[in-house]
Structures are given as C-alpha cells and as structure tokens.
C-alpha cells in the first residue's frame, strides 16, 4: 500500500501524475484522528480533542495524544493522518530548536508558528503531496491571545473559536451561540465538553476518552484523559422496532 514518504521540502516527488510506478505522494489517509475543538477564553486558549485514532472504520488506537505544546507560547492540535501529524511535530521541533539556539530575547509566538505551518501545508499541497491534517494552533504571547486553523490545502484563518472535521458541523454552531468574550475557565471547559459530547454521540470516529488542554501566558497544561458521561435512556430507544414491521 502506498505510504507517505518522508521528503525534504526541496525535492520533487517522482511521477507526479504519471502511471503505476512508485507513487511517493499522499493519496489517502490511513490512521486518522477526528475533530479538534478550541476556543479563546479569559486567560488564553482552551482546546479539546479525543484520544482516538481510527484505521478506516476501526477505532484502532485509543491513547493517542493529538495535542502537543510547541515552544513556550503555542499549542497544536491536529486531526487527520496521525503519521503526518508526527512529521509536523518533527518539523516544529527543529524550528523551535533553531529559535532557541539564537539565545536572544526573541521567541516564535503562535502567530509565527501558524504562519510557518500555513507555508508548509500550502507548499506540500502545491506539490500534490499534502500533509493530510487539519491543524489548530492556539497560544498566548505578551498578553495577546491567538487561535488559528490551517487545513491540508493551506487554507488558514484566525477566529475566536475553531474546530476541525465534524466539529465544524456539530460544534461550531454551539460555539456561535454560546461563546462570548472573557469566558471563565470553568465556563470554557463546560462549553467544550458540551461540544465534545455532541461529537461523541454523533461522530462515529469519536471515542469517549478525551483531553482538554489550556494555554495561558504561564504555559501549557494538558489534562489527564477522562470520559464524558453519556445518557442513552431516551424513550425513543425503547422498543426501537415497534413501528417497523418485519424489523427486529
């Protein structure tokens, strides 16, 4: 099966649109993570993602950390191909390393990391070899909160709340209604949990094991994994086949 080859940004993938022989460009994702949801609150950014990685329709891996801290000021969450996410973490590791090696008073903030990721994603897309991810980048630097998203084709934007994948359809409407400036930490978490619960009910690739990450001026905290309470005792679920003749 065709796999994504690790390639330097400079070299050309063989057989861009040609026939059979060794295709070295990404065609489909294989092990994927589902939605990431994030919002700005009073002190910074809150981000939530579950710990599942699916292999097609199999919920294969259930302890995958899909949010990671980047440098001192940023937090990255990713959905999509997990191996590509790991590749991106590798690029960012190097970026932060070189940034630290300058050893001067300057450091890359969330805006810079977001812009860098946009460039990387867009350039890969132009070579028809995308990193199959939707990335959420949040952070705080010098009191300025920042929250942005980059898609696998390089579309990027900033907003007060973002979500990837199914989150766009299920979580964003809730956030549009209920988000407001200066949410407290507790309210922010409640709001995110509300979104994640809906996703858990309705997204088939969601698993009930999630983490919530917080980034403030002080730094990053990623919670221990936990599960959401769910309720299935709806009357509509009792005797579900009562109206359907022949069904069981």
């Amino acid at each position, binding site marked *: 099966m065709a796999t994504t080859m690790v390639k330097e940004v400079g070299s050309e993938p063989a057989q861009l649109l040609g026939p059979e022989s060794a295709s070295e460009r990404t065609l489909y994702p294989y092990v994927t993570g589902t939605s990431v949801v994030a919002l700005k609150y009073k002190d910074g950014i809150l981000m939530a993602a579950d710990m599942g990685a699916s292999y097609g329709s199999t919920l294969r891996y259930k302890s995958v950390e899909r949010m990671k801290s980047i440098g001192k000021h940023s937090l990255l969450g990713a959905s999509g191909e997990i191996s590509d996410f790991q590749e991106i973490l590798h690029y960012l590791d190097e970026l932060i390393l070189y940034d630290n090696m*300058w050893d*001067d*008073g*300057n450091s*890359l*903030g969330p*805006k*810079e990391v*977001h*812009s*860098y990721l946009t*460039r990387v994603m867009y350039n890969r897309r132009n070579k028809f070899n995308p990193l199959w991810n939707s990335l959420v980048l949040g952070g705080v630097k*010098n009191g300025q909160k920042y929250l942005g998203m980059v898609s696998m084709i390089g579309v990027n934007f900033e907003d007060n709340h973002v979500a990837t994948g199914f989150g766009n359809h299920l979580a964003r409407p809730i956030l549009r209604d209920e988000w407001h400036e200066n949410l407290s930490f507790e309210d922010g978490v409640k709001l995110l949990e509300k979104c994640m619960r809906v996703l858990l009910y309705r997204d088939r690739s969601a698993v009930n094991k999630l983490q919530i990450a917080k980034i403030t001026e002080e730094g990053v905290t990623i919670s221990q994994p936990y599960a959401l309470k769910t309720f299935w005792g709806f009357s509509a679920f009792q005797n579900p086949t009562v109206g359907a003749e022949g069904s069981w």
Partner: protein
Amino acid sequence: MFRNQYDTDVTTWSPAGRLFQVEYAMEAVKQGSAAIGLRSKTHVVLACVNKANSELSSHQKKIFKVDDHIGVAIAGLTADGRVLSRYMRSECINYSFTYESPLPVGRLVVQLADKAQVCTQRSWKRPYGVGLLVAGLDESGAHLYYNCPSGNYFEYQAFAIGSRSQAAKTYLERRFANFADSSRDDLIKDALIAVRETLQGETLKSSICTVAVVGVGEAFHVLDQDTVQQLIDAFEIVGEPEGPAAEPEPEPEPEPDAAAEEGTTADQGAAPDQGVAPMDI
C-alpha cells in the same frame, strides 16, 4: 599602517596574530564620509554626511530602508553597502513572508556578521569594505548595532563611523546618558549636532546631510530635505548644543525665527577651514 609581508591576502596571519587585510578593510570604513546613529528607548535616528562628487552629480545614497522596522546607514565602499542592504532586505522579506512577523534586528545583525566573517576566511574573497549602522525595533525595544568588516558586531546607545567621526563621538559621549529618555525630536537634534561636529566649520545644510528615523509606531523613513532644513534652522538659532525645548513635529510650517538673526550667537566652528571631507570611495 605600513605595508608588510603578511598583508597580501586575508588568509595569512601576521606573527602578532593580526589579519591585515581585515584591518585594511576597516580603514576603508574610516575613509568614508561620516554616519551617525543614536537611540532612545522608543526611537533610533540615523544621520549621515552626504557629499556629492561635484555640483553636477547627485549624492551618494548612504541610508537604506531595509524593512518597516529596520534601516541602515553605511560608511565606506558604498557599492558593498548596497549589496549588503539588498541581502538584509531579502532576509527581512523572506522572514516576514514565512512568519508574518518582523525579523528581530538582533538576528539580522548576527546573520550579517556571519556573512562578513565568511569573507575573512576564504582565500578567493575579500572582506566587505563597509561599516553598517543598523537601526531597528523589535519586541525588546529600540536597537542600534554597528557591523564591522571583520564580522564583529556591537550594540550601541550611540555611535559614529567614517571620517572625522571622532568629533561626533566626543559629542555623543558627553550626551549619551540623556538619550534613553529623549523625545524623538531631541534625538534628531542631537544627531544633527553630531553631524555638524564632523563638518568642522562647514555650515550644516540639509543638502549635505541625510536623516532617517524609526520608532514605536513610526516606520523607518528618511526625512525630506525641507524638514531637515527646518530642524537645522531651529536649533542653529539657539546656538549652543544645550537646546531646551522639543521642536514642533516636523511638518512644513515656517519657523518664526528663520528671518531673524542667524548665527550671531552661534559659536560653532570658527575653526580655520580644513578643506572638504574626502569623497565617498
């Protein structure tokens, strides 16, 4: 410095541990016409003496805008300076494109210094014959750096390079303790006075000097000749370098005392003329 058997190429050390070619390159900087830089907490001012070869020709451009937040003044081989400015502009714009953020001056200066160092360690190259005063703003405030042909760089509160820069340095040394909290206009005034010091008697006019400013909320730009002339007129009336009040904002408005006595109380340069400054190489 006298010629000696160790000065033919840059990859030969002298027994005393000197690289003469690098030192000769620094001589070239000393022969160029003066450039001065000074900074406060929020602004950096660059000023330089701009002599034209003849009345028929235009002036050498010695101050270059590198980015909205960085500018550079050069002294020495202006062609080398131009090439390095292009490099700096390129670095800034590439960084801006990738990170959507201005390149921190401190990093640009290190890259520039590393580039200069390469030329001190290759037998087929020569050192850049130009000194650069890099003025810029970043997260940690206003900065002024001096980049040497040797590949060294230093940060300064105020500095002057080029011919007769010692006179300017002396003036700056007397006054630099005040610079950190100076207003923008006082800073420009001090820069102009420092330039005047290097002219040794010759009248300071906006046609022979160039001034540029960068500051918090103010992109790097070169002040136009009329503005500079107004500033010169304003403080030359006052006479001594201890001008009290800040100038009005440099906008085209007639100076009230322009028509009044000029230079009667001025006690600058009654020195005998020593001829014009050497041309830019």
